[in-house]
């Protein structure tokens, strides 16, 4: 668990982060979203003390981070950044082994861990272990960057626009992978993004920042249905609200007993996918794999604030 208490950062008389407090529960994902210059990256970098707070403190599992030497603190916190930041002169395996080596793991353990991570990220070790970063595609570099951040099994992972340099198709699958791996490992994750869709897709909670202030810190549904300020509402964009709302719930949550014609929809598909399928095939109801139906009527209700999916 990480607790941020009244964190402030000033550069001269410019305040970049202003009295921000928030808590991220163990195994949760917090997505910090905002325009550039909103202070979200500075907030993130104060967690592993790449930026020293002017005031306030950060507690990780109850320990004040200021009481630990910065480099030792950082070895326990995963860190992945935009454009991957891989070391160009080191192989994939050496890059991933960075933190384990700093921690003094023995060679056999490091090797096993590297292979395990490469498997986890679907990069066959035999093929990728000894490659240099420039011999990888952008998506592969990014996966190696995240593997490196996870190498020493940190309880906390910080990511700064990790998918910013990827094209949309690869980005979507990278987000899905991250979500899967984060659930598998139970890592607490703080991710900075300027992309509200990414924040919606990943965040258990979303923190919206503007001009150094944390405007709202709440689950995605609350951000959508109950924006704290006009800025938050504007950032989400009114035209996308129903679709964001639908994407937060799964078909299984809305299924009712009954039967319908046509090809079925998977129970863990999002309501947004179900709506798209209804509209595209011109059907008023879809059968759900394993029984039940989801109706267009129910989808329509779920797309409104306070609708059926409000309390899954």
């Amino acid at each position: 668990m990480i607790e941020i208490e009244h964190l402030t950062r000033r550069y001269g008389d410019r305040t970049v982060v202003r009295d921000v407090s928030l808590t991220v529960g163990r195994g949760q994902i917090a997505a910090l979203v905002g325009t550039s210059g909103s202070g979200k990256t500075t907030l993130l970098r104060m967690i592993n003390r790449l930026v020293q707070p002017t005031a306030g403190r950060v507690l990780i599992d109850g320990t004040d981070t200021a009481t630990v030497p910065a480099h030792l603190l950082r070895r326990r916190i995963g860190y992945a950044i935009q454009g991957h930041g891989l070391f160009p002169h080191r192989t994939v395996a050496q890059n991933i082994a960075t933190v384990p080596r700093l921690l003094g793991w023995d060679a056999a353990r490091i090797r096993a861990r590297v292979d395990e991570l490469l498997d986890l990220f679907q990069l066959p070790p035999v093929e990728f272990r000894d490659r240099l970063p420039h011999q990888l595609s952008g998506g592969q570099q990014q996966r190696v960057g995240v593997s490196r951040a996870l190498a020493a099994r940190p309880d906390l992972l910080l990511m700064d626009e990790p998918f910013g340099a990827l094209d949309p198709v690869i980005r979507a699958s990278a987000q899905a992978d991250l979500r899967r791996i984060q659930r598998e490992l139970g890592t607490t994750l703080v991710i900075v993004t300027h992309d509200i869709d990414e924040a919606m897709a990943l965040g258990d909670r979303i923190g919206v920042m503007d001009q150094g202030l944390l405007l709202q810190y709440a689950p995605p549904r609350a951000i959508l249905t109950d924006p704290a300020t006009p800025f938050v509402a504007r950032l989400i964009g009114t035209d996308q609200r129903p679709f964001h709302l639908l994407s937060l719930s799964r078909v299984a949550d809305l299924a009712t007993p009954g039967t319908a014609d046509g090809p079925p929809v998977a129970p863990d598909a999002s309501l947004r996918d179900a709506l798209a399928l209804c509209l595209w095939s011109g059907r008023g109801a879809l059968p759900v794999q394993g029984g039940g139906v989801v109706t267009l009527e129910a989808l329509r209700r779920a797309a409104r604030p306070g609708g059926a999916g409000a309390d899954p």
Partner: protein
Amino acid sequence: MAAAAPARARVTLSRPGVLFAAIGLAGLALPLVQFRANRIVAGEGASLPGALGGWGWIAAAALAAALLVGVPARTPARLRLALALGGVLVTVAALGASAGALTPPGDRIARVSPSAGFWLLGLAFALAVADALARIGLAFRQRWALLAGAVAVVALVLGSGLLDDVSVMREYQARRDVFAREAGRHLLLAFGSLGAALAVGLPLGIAIHQVPRLRAGVLGGLNIVQTIPSLALFGIMIPLFGWVAATVPGAAAAGVAGIGAFPALVALFLYSLLPVVSNMVVGLSAVPHGARDAAVGLGMTRAQVLAQVMIPLTLPVVLAAVRIVLVQNIGLAVIAGLIGGGGFGSFVFQGLNQTAMDLVLLGTLPTIALALVSGIALDLLVAQLDGRRGRGT
């Protein structure tokens, strides 16, 4: 149109080929060697046929043919390379044979020295070799092999006695033991000053990068040193270190002196500092920001960031500096001969004083060879490192 096309195809010329042929043919027309009854008197030129008779005509015809084959653009690069290498060897062999033929048997005073014809032929074929190599684009391993092969062939030719009657080799035979010593001294001056410059310059570059306030002052100061003409800097050293040696206790015993190797080393060291320091600074600031940020963010200490990320990534740029400095110092070390520092320069200045050009050449040719080999070897190293790290991909 239809009639003109084949005509145009027939006259397609390789521009470099034309240039090399022009230089080489001019060389054939000029005297290959110069014969002098002794070291000092004015000599008379002798062309290839003039020196070697019938064999000379054959050699001249072969060289001319090799030059002319390179003129059409469609001559393949590998054939160009073979002909050019053959041309170099024939030219050198012709020099040795002419010297042997022109020198009266048993005469140790007569001198046969290379003349304009030899230099032009050598230049033409050397350029043709370089041009052909650039066209072929050899792999690194082949380029290393070629460099080693070239050095071995030169050693073989010199050791075979083929050139023993040529004036420069005559001078060498008279100074065999001194030559080895001065060669060692020359290497010491060039590599010693490089080593010292690296030992001081690399940490200095790191310091400047860490403390940017130092940058303007240090680089400015080194820039000023770089603008002092070498002769002047060597001159400044004489009174300066002479005074230090005379007044500071123990300095003279430690080797400090106004003349000799010490001031020469110091001067070369000073000239080396700017390229080393500035390349180190450039290399450090060119390290990708992401790599640096990640290194700190993953928990490396300052020293670890430097040792494991920053410095390895500056290696190609530092090697480029080493190349600049080494080639520069091998050349500049010649001036050390003027202040008693030894090295090949001592032959050059002795030769100048005695107006004995052969002695000057005895100092110059090994200097050029040394600089060439070092330059090519380091170029290869830099290119290999860059290739491995995927720069420019």
